[in-house]
């Protein structure tokens, strides 16, 4: 391994990182630079600090406490490490080693240098001194029996870095195809996001214990009230009151202790199982075992983690060699079998989605709507964003259904749950729709260059989302109707209400797209280097204007609730009738305002095209 090459690789990674920061703005570059320098500077104090903290805290803790501390350290480290990985994946520069293989560097050197230089990450600079300091404290406090924690830490770091490196190599060969690249980026992000939801799912696992404790407190308060009432009514004397009160408190303490102990046992069991099953838990498990005087778990952990790390490195090396010999490139350049298998002339007879007509709509509107829908359904990042309302609904819905009171809600609250579901769907597509042109990127030029009326373009853009949004809303409404059934007329009223909600939402989304467009990098989900004014305008849209525009759609339900509560009219589906009326009014407003928005759009289209097609905007 050539030292000069190593320096060059380290420098390259550093420059790529700095340039990435710089692209996000001068302030961000300075901030990140300060953080990077600060991390290096605080590495030594972190080592000393964690050692000192460990020396003070370890004598008080049990082996199980040590396991929890190490679990916390491992999870925190992995969150930082994976965040860095996701950020690196979303960068435009591919991670491929193929960029280096044409240079005068041997394959083995290129592999090793790239691996070692990949260790230059903030998470490693911060966490390794911390973990090392804490390990030294363990040895210092508990004695030589804890010495295996040091090789276990090294094996853990080897395993994580080697697995990540192998993963990156595999991804880079996958990402030679730009279509797959976007899929990979989105899949990794989804896994990361879902993984971050695990703690809340786990906490809901322990919810029954917390619920029973709350129930117990309520019971105690009730019994004490009863006791006080009886004492006030002179049913017994003060001595009897004191005796009964003590009995109540003692009973409660016993029950609390029992509940705490059950919870603690459950957490302990779950933690031990998770540590045993997941290789990342072997380091904490080894520490616990060593603290209890058992070396076998630690030694097995070291062996297992070293084996995984070595196997990953070996596999990554084979991938590198394969790439050098052109295997990956050859596979990537082959035409897809799907194309080859397509019979000639098939396209002549089959009607494309984009060729279909939509009754009542002009040709440009239909083309824009169907083209937009086709793009949406093919774009992995859009699909992920469109799925998010369903994921949110499942998460929140499960939590709600676990609650005891949902089946007892009144007739007036049930439609509100349906409205809430529709609101979640709209909120889920808000990011996409409030920057409709941003997701077109270069394709937006075709709208500026076209002779289509700008009103038609906006209408087509809005309609592109309609089937997806309506489909998701329907799924959620049916689910709500199954789990929290509402009256038939209320259920039917949801449909015109949804049309009103969607059209008002479209008007807001159009304004936001016209006045706060932002460039979105291909395969990405977020704005690239957005201006503060744009961020503020979008925050205003999301946080204030979106809920505000939806409030009027609650009027029909509110009016029915008022009428029925006063007993003015009975047996008339007021909510349904008013929803239909409201829908007609909103359609009229939408038609009127859309022409006005078309004019606005035309007056700003050149500014929009500058922004949405320019990655530096």
């Amino acid at each position, binding site marked *: 391994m050539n030292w000069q090459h190593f320096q060059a690789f380290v420098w390259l990674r550093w420059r790529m990182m700095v340039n990435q920061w710089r692209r996000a703005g001068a302030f961000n570059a300075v901030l990140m630079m300060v953080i990077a320098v600060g991390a290096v500077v605080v590495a030594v104090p972190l080592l000393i600090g964690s050692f000192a903290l460990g020396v003070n805290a370890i004598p008080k803790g049990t082996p199980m406490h040590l396991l929890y501390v190490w679990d916390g350290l491992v999870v925190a480290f992995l969150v930082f490490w994976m965040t860095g990985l996701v950020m690196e994946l979303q960068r435009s520069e591919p991670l491929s080693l193929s960029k280096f293989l044409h240079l005068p560097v041997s394959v083995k050197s290129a592999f090793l240098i790239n691996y070692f230089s990949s260790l230059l990450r903030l998470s490693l600079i911060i966490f390794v001194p911390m973990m090392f300091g804490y390990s030294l404290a363990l040895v210092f406090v508990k004695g030589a029996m804890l010495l295996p924690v040091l090789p276990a830490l090294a094996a853990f770091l080897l395993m994580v870095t080697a697995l990540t490196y192998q993963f990156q190599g595999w991804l880079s060969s996958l990402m030679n*195809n*730009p*279509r797959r690249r*976007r899929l990979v980026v989105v899949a990794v992000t989804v896994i990361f996001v879902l993984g971050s939801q695990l703690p809340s799912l786990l906490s809901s696992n322990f919810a029954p214990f917390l619920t029973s404790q709350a129930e117990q407190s309520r019971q105690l308060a009730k019994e004490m009230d009863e006791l006080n009432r009886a004492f006030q009514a002179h049913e017994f004397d003060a001595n009897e009151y004191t005796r009964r009160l003590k009995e109540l408190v003692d009973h409660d303490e016993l029950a609390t202790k029992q509940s705490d102990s059950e919870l603690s046992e459950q957490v302990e069991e779950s933690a031990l199982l998770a540590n045993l099953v997941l290789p990342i838990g072997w380091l904490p498990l080894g520490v616990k075992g060593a603290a209890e005087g058992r070396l076998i778990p630690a030694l097995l952990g070291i062996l297992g983690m070293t084996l995984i790390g070595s196997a990953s490195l070996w596999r990554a090396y084979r991938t590198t060699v394969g790439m050098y010999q052109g295997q990956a490139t050859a596979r990537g350049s082959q*035409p*897809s079998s*799907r*194309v080859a298998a*397509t019979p000639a002339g098939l*396209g*002549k007879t089959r009607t*494309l*989605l*984009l*060729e279909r007509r939509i009754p009542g709509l002009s*040709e*440009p509107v*239909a*083309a*824009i709507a169907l*083209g937009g829908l*086709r*793009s949406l359904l*093919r*774009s992995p990042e859009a699909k992920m964003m469109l799925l998010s309302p369903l994921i949110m609904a499942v998460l929140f819905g499960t939590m709600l259904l676990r609650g005891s009171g949902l089946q007892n809600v009144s007739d007036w609250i049930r439609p509100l749950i349906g409205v809430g579901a529709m609101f979640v769907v709209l909120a889920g597509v808000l990011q996409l729709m409030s920057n409709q042109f941003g997701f*077109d*990127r*270069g*394709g*937006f*030029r*075709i709208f*500026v*260059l*076209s*002779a*289509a*009326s700008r009103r038609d373009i906006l209408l087509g853009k809005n309609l592109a989302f309609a089937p997806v949004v309506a489909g998701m809303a329907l799924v959620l409404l049916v689910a709500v109707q199954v789990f929290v059934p509402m009256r038939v007329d209320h259920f039917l009223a949801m449909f015109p209400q949804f049309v009103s909600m969607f059209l008002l939402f479209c008007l807001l989304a159009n304004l936001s797209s016209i006045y706060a467009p932002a460039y979105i990098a*291909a395969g990405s989900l977020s704005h690239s280097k957005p201006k503060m004014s744009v961020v503020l305008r979008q925050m205003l849209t999301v946080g204030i204007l979106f809920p505000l525009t939806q409030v009027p759609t609650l009027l029909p339900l509110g009016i029915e609730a008022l009428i029925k509560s006063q007993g003015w009219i009975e047996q008339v589906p007021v909510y349904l009738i008013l929803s239909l009326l409201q829908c007609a009014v909103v359609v009229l407003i939408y038609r009127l305002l859309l022409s006005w928005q078309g*004019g606005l759009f*035309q*007056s700003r*289209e*050149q*500014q929009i*095209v*500058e922004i949405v*097609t320019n990655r530096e905007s």
Partner: protein
Amino acid sequence: MNLAIETHQLTRNFNDFCAVGGIDLAVERGTFYGFLGPNGAGKSTTIKMLTGLLAPSGGRMLVLGKNMRDPKESLDAKRHMGVIPEDLALFDNLTAREYLTFVGRIHLMPRDTIRNRTEELLSVLALDDVEKKLTLEYSHGMKKKLAMAAALLPNPDLLFLDEPFEGVDAVTSRVIRDLLSGYVARGSTVFLTSHVLEIVERLCTHVGIIVKGKLVEQGPLATIRQGGTLEDRFLQQAGADSESTRKLNWLDEAAS
């Protein structure tokens, strides 16, 4: 004179930088107009302004007799224009056939016409064997060809082509040249920028040269050449510095 493009003091500033400084273009209908200039001279900025992709900072511009600064008139002009912009205007997630169908419908073309022309364009431009691929999987040359197909699809009266031959293979380049020659022969107009002077010399009837945002020369090709080659004239106008190549004399040394 029947002009397809006419500008008066057309200007575009980016903050303090003047990209196009008051140019007066006059492109007659039925001509093949080559718009030349060194990198950063203002060619693409001019095309963007003429096609409505960029608002001018000042000046007047008429395209096909329509005032492009007037929203309604600019739409009228766009109905008769085809454009290959500098960075293209494709949608990543559509196939070539879908994209052309989309463009055709935006131009209110009948469905059968779109189908037939799409078929022919994909075949002529050798895109038919990759029509199942999304455009994001295309090479740069293939994207250029698809943009060319989209520009030709509505059979416009005026074509704006920004570097149409860049990254395109020799066979397709020949096909495009023939297509464009026939197109102009029928009375339509092409406004083209290219760095390949041989192509401009072979195709264009008229030439304009822009340097540092100023139109330094325009007119019929023969007049511009002044008996020499277009390259000589262009280099003369662009102020090429032959001294700079002499500074790299270490390239003459034998490799160690």
